[in-house]
């Protein structure tokens, strides 16, 4: 007799009730929180860990980004942490035993002005010196890599060339979160959903635990990974953060045959486009300018990026918009993340990834777990400390990072 079909496929993780106490409580069950829990368990043997998520796992920016992965940042500190992140990405499908459709189809950053060309070539050279794969493409080579790009000179901002990182690409973001959640859960981490942190207890300058809508939880260490909500979380412990939370929108078209073989980003006319495995064109652009927690933005921002997309890709003119949505990105004054200790003992903060959080997921988790476990930063995130806003050692990726923030 044939085996009966199971009633329901196995769940990827348990849904435990919170215990009264943990060695480490991570606040925020997005990509960064899950990756941090994964590396705490895997690299540091710390498994008495809870990840507290106010909604459902990976329902914030992890489900709202445009899934672009690259490491072609200008400055040494950024190139180091994002390149480490990219190397971890390359190992993750095997390590996490989960094919989350990581596709290294290359990332192209178009140049449309002489200044763009100069900055792009400078960035290519800086990348190569830092061991990041990067090359400069002239317009004809752009056309060879991505035949649907309009390289004609009869448009407002003609394509004058592009930087290209062949190892860049995309991945299916929700599957990445589930892969991490499954592994972290297997190693004993408690993933607790619908658990909103409402307070952080600090006793004599040292963190003692958190209060939640499911009761108080004592904690040896508390690690914030709340992205757009970081200011409110840190404020519960009396810590101020130099970040501003902005709406960032993205959108998809209906499904199409494969037409777009790579990822194309344009800072100048400002749109970035890839085609998901399923067939949707996935696009995004810049943040809405104001502080906003609404997870939505203005439609004129979408209209602008659509006009940019149609100018660059004339075949998109008949495509229909299927869905738009927004996330809340936490942006620092220098557009670089903060992965740092704080003035409160045993309270750590990972925030300020702005528009770069998804690609930085492995690097953030890896360095943040190290910082939490050792109460000292890893060499990769040492430059990304909060103190840099006092010492002046900023890592100014505004405009340098190949895309505006």
């Amino acid at each position, binding site marked *: 007799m044939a085996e009966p079909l199971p009633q329901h496929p196995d769940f990827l993780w348990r849904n435990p009730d919170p215990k009264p106490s943990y060695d480490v409580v991570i606040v925020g069950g997005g990509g960064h929180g899950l990756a941090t829990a994964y590396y705490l368990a895997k690299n540091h043997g710390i498994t008495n860990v809870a990840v507290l998520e*106010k909604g459902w796992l990976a329902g914030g920016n992890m489900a709202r980004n445009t899934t672009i992965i690259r490491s072609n940042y200008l400055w040494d500190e950024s190139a180091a942490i994002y390149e480490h992140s990219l190397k971890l990405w390359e190992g993750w499908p095997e390590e996490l035993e989960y094919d989350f459709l990581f596709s290294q189809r290359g990332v192209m950053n178009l140049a449309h002005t002489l200044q763009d060309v100069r900055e792009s070539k400078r960035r290519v050279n800086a990348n190569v010196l830092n061991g990041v794969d990067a090359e400069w493409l002239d317009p004809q080579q752009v056309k060879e890599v991505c035949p649907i790009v309009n390289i004609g000179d009869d448009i407002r901002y003609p394509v004058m060339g592009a930087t290209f990182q062949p190892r860049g690409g995309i991945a299916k973001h929700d599957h990445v979160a589930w892969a991490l959640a499954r592994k972290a859960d297997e190693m004993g981490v408690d993933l607790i959903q619908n658990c909103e942190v409402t307070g952080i207890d600090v006793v004599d300058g040292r963190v003692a635990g958190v209060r939640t809508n499911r009761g108080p939880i004592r904690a040896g260490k508390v690690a914030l990974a709340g992205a757009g909500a970081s200011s409110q979380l840190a404020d519960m412990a009396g810590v101020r953060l*130099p970040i501003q939370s902005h709406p960032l929108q993205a959108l998809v078209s209906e499904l199409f045959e494969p037409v777009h073989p790579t990822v194309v980003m344009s800072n100048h006319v400002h749109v970035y486009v890839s085609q998901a495995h399923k067939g949707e064109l996935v696009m995004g652009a810049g943040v809405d300018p104001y502080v906003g927690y609404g997870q939505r933005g203005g439609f004129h921002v979408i209209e602008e990026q659509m006009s940019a997309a149609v100018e660059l890709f004339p075949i998109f003119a008949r495509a229909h918009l299927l869905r738009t949505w927004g996330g809340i990105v936490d942006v620092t004054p220098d557009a670089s993340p903060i992965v740092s200790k704080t003035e409160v003992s045993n309270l750590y903060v990972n925030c300020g990834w702005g528009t770069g959080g998804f690609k930085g997921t492995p690097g953030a988790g890896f360095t943040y777990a190290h910082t939490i476990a050792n109460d000292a930063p890893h060499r990769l995130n040492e430059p990304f400390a909060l103190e840099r806003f006092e010492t002046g050692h900023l890592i100014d990726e505004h405009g340098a990072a190949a895309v505006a923030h």
Partner: protein
Amino acid sequence: MLLINCPFCGEREETEFTYGGQAHVPYPQDPAKLTDREWAEYVFYRENTRGIYAERWHHALGCRQWFNALRDTTTYEFSATYRAGEARPDLPVTNAVEPLNPEVTQ
């Protein structure tokens, strides 16, 4: 698209304006006396309020005047706009504290 009530021109569309961040950040009284931490606070640290926020806007494609506004950062609704130099209107400062996903929070 936000509709913004410029105190000089009246209601205009958001695309006519640029954003200027937090309002009412005074220049330090005695800059030479500031510690590094205080300088960092002045230069880099701004409130990131979830709720009613006092902020600056510039009517860049209109009268080109700077002015201030009170806006709820969760609903994006303006409760007041007023000229630069005027005091912040005395409206109740209710910082929204409702959770982001109320439907799933117990």
